[in-house]
């Protein structure tokens, strides 16, 4: 009897694994992504509007930086997302290498432009914050410098994938690069931080800007959630395009578009 129960449990686990693997095939992921996209857009809109409301109408004026500090409500979420997306991208890339699932590589490829956009926004808003506060568009602050290097890593990833014609090779080469990048990011971050403290050129720290009031934290969190949902929605849209581009000669694509 015990043996029988064990067997049944084993089958149950196996079925649930198969159930999840089902979504690892482009064929079933394509419609699933299509169904999820509107929900993520709705969530992005709700969080974004709530976040903007707090950032402009609830959060008080900062004693030192006046209204200029409100840039924090886009700068910090963009920086967080740029780092987080790289981790997620490397996760998908690693999964693709380990399990050889096709959707993983496509997800990594779909996330990269959004990650690069977030890094670019972080740099742009950082510059627009730096100018009024410290009188210069660019400071070699440890965080800004790391963000710039992260932006370069995204560009390298996208350039490598664009240069390889065979999509399977592009996925695998990109995956190796993303994993090498993930190992290097903490090393780069700490080396830049060390370099920054040694040179003492800029004693500025973007993140210590205002004494963080509770409402400011809420505004930042809501905006970050909005950016997060936005990133998922865009990445899913892009992954659908990539799936169709790559699977154009298969039967299921012909039927899916009927």
């Amino acid at each position: 009897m015990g043996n029988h129960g064990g067997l049944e449990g084993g089958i149950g686990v196996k079925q649930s694994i198969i159930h999840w693997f089902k979504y690892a095939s482009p064929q079933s992921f394509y419609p699933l992504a299509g169904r999820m996209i509107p929900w993520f857009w709705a969530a992005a809109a709700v969080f974004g509007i709530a976040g903007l409301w707090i950032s402009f109408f609830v959060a008080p004026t900062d004693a030192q930086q006046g209204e200029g500090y409100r840039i924090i409500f886009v700068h910090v979420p963009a920086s967080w997302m740029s780092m987080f997306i790289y981790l997620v991208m490397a996760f998908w890339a690693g999964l693709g290498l380990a399990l050889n699932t096709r959707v993983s590589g496509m997800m990594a490829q779909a996330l990269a432009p959004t990650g690069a956009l977030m890094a670019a926004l972080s740099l742009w808003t950082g510059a627009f914050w730096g100018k009024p506060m410290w009188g210069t568009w660019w400071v070699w602050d440890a965080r800004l410098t790391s963000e710039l290097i992260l932006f370069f890593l995204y560009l390298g990833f996208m350039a490598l994938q664009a240069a390889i014609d065979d999509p399977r090779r592009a996925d695998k080469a990109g995956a190796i690069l993303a994993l090498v990048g993930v190992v290097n990011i903490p090393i780069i971050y700490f080396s830049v931080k060390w370099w920054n403290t040694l040179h003492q050129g800029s004693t500025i720290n973007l993140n210590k800007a205002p004494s963080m009031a509770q409402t400011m934290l809420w505004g930042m969190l809501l905006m970050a959630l909005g950016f997060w949902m936005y990133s998922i929605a865009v990445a899913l849209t892009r992954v659908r395009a990539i799936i169709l581009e790559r699977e154009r000669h298969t039967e299921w694509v012909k039927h899916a578009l009927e």
Partner: protein
Amino acid sequence: MHWNSVGDFFAMGGYALYVWGSFGACLVLMVVEPLLARKRLTEVRDTLARERLADELDHQSGTS
């Protein structure tokens, strides 16, 4: 609510260029990127639909 007027709100206490420059850049890029992604998707769909139509026409002319 601590803005006295709409003009006050847009002036951002003298930081208008920086605050609206940051939020504006985010807004513009976060509108353009989804549109580009959307365009890519519709383009693939259109190409595939055209190919399909061409196949069908080929097939018809072949059999008749």
